[in-house]
């Protein structure tokens, strides 16, 4: 019994939309990071689904790579969040706008 590709894609889409809404709605950078993570994993689900469909393991390899990149990104992101928190004691991405052009 195999899961049809449509189910993978639906799950992936649901996760992506959740992540997107999180990125756009949330103000806490930690939540932002979590949402981004969610979107990356939505991509992973789609990759693995296609991997199963074509019976090709390279999709799963990509998923692993994405996980590694995501881990690295989280490390940097958390580091930034902690640094900003130390200097501001307030975590609101809307107030972090010193790079405004």
């Amino acid at each position, binding site marked *: 019994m195999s899961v049809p590709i449509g189910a993978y894609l639906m799950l992936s889409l649901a996760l992506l939309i959740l992540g*997107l809404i999180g*990125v*756009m*709605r949330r*103000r806490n950078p930690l939540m*932002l990071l979590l949402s981004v993570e969610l979107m990356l994993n939505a991509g992973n689900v789609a990759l693995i689904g296609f991997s199963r469909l074509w019976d090709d393991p390279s999709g799963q390899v990509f998923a692993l790579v994405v996980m590694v990149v995501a881990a690295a990104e989280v490390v940097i992101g958390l580091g930034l969040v902690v640094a900003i928190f130390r200097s501001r004691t307030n975590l609101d*991405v*809307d107030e*972090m*706008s*010193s*790079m*405004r*052009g």
Partner: protein
Amino acid sequence: MATTLSWMVLVLPLVSGLVLTGWPSEPPRAITRVLGIGSILVAFALSVWVFADLLGSPPEERSLTSRAFEWIAIGDVTVDLSILVDPLSVMMMLVITGVGFLIHLYSAEYMGGDRDYRRFFAGMNLFVFSMLLLVMAGNFLFLIVGWAFVGLASYLLIGFWYERPTAVAAAKKAFIVNVIGDVGLVLGAVLILRETGTLDYAGAFAGAGSIGADSGTLLAICLLLFMGAAAKSAQVPLHTWLPDAMEGPTPVSALIHAATMVTAGVYLVVRCHVFFDLSWLAGDIVAVVGAITLLMAATVALQQVDIKRVLAWSTISQVGYMIMAVGLGAYASGMFMLMAHAFFKAALFLAAGIVIHALHGEQNLDRMAGLRKHLRVAYFGMGAGCLAIAGVPGFAGFFAKDDVLASALAGGNVGVACWVIGVIGAFLTALYMFRLLFRAFFGPEPGGGYRPVPHPSRWWMSVPVVILGVLSIVGGLVQVPFGWAGITDWLQPVTGNAPSVLAPTHTTEVVTVITSSVVALAGIALAWWLFGADPARRLRLAGVARSTREVMRGGWRFDEVCDDVIVEPGRTVADVMWAEVEPKGPQGIITGTTALLRGGARLVGASQSGLVRAYAFWMVLGIVAVGIVLAIVVTGAV
């Protein structure tokens, strides 16, 4: 053998100049003297050796070329670093190093009180090297190099006392006017290269005939070369720098602006005589310019009160004689005049230097008189020089000027006109030179006597003046009418036998000898009547022809005309460029570009809100847009 020695003559002053320049601090004066003066003395000794060597070989073997190495090779054109040792260049070498050595020796004392002793001698050595390069170069390229170096050395030495604004201005003026000439010379050389395919003297002169006698191209070559010659030799209208050049120390005036550099133009015309031989119009233009210059400068010299300016205008006038002679084709006469002039003008300048030195920088004739009791050596030098330059029979200037005029009289209509002007000029020469002599050395001392008493010169300064004075007396004996013709014979291999080469005939010689003697003595007599016999007479006559004399004193207003015609319009153009064209043109393009970029950046910068969530929103919008486009494309394709 001769060429090896010539290379040493050329290199010695350069080496000593470089050593003096590179010496880490101001060297002891003894070392500066040994290097600065000794190198020139050795160069002179070697030049004499070269001269003797050439004299010992038959006339047709007296032209030697020596090539050090190939300097440039472009296509078929090669230019070597080479020197040409022939009677003409050897004669110039002797004059340059001989008179140069005496003037260097003189400078040892004259510049004794100056803190920049080393810089002075380094500059003088550089000048001697440049001048030697100019006369010894074997092709037009190195002629130009020497020509330009001479201008540089002249600039450095006129502006030697750089604290004086007038000296700096004079140096700049000299340099700029000389560069105008340099441009002419370079263009002339390029034209020669185009026509004959080579810059070597031998090849260029051999190819001169193929350009076509009296053709426009040949005339252009001659006139461009003469433009260079006129600037260096201070011929009308490029003469205005020379009187101002007297701001330099007196030995500089004597060496550069009297004896050697200003005669470079004469040398150039003689060296390139093949071209001038073939274009009668160019030769006549040169002669007429020389004649105009000699007459104009002689009238100006009459009215100068600065002792050095009298001599400067006199130099312009005498060089006018030489240019006139070589323009008419009397090359040997011109070179004879050049040599004699080097002797007597150097003697005059150095004697004037003794006066200036003794009077602590006083150069105004109004504050000089009766100096003959105090300054015996200067009196001798000045007296011998005046007798020579005025053309009193027996002295050097007599034979030289006589040779020039007698040749001119044999030179057709233009020659006769030049002869008349030359005779008038000879009269004026005698008048203005003896005016100087009588005013400075005769009459009662100003203010009842000098305080302090003028100090006589020591041997450093006296010896050169005496030697040059003696040369002014006997130097003309190398070429005596109806006797022998030393200079003409010596230069025979260079000037050749072209039909246009002039020489005095028996009749013109007789006419000229009588006329010029009478004229010279008349000029001296008039000078004695005006300035010598009764010093007060000159003051009584001060009101005669005042406005004309004012014009003459100002050098016929050449400087004013030059200001009005060239400098002021140039300044106006520059002002308009500065105020109107530049801000709106190039500067406008630059400011416009930056304004455009800045405005564009402000526009794009508005999108950088700094809100991360806004970025995310725009990103999503972008992704959606790309997705829609992709969907349309994919479904459309399917």
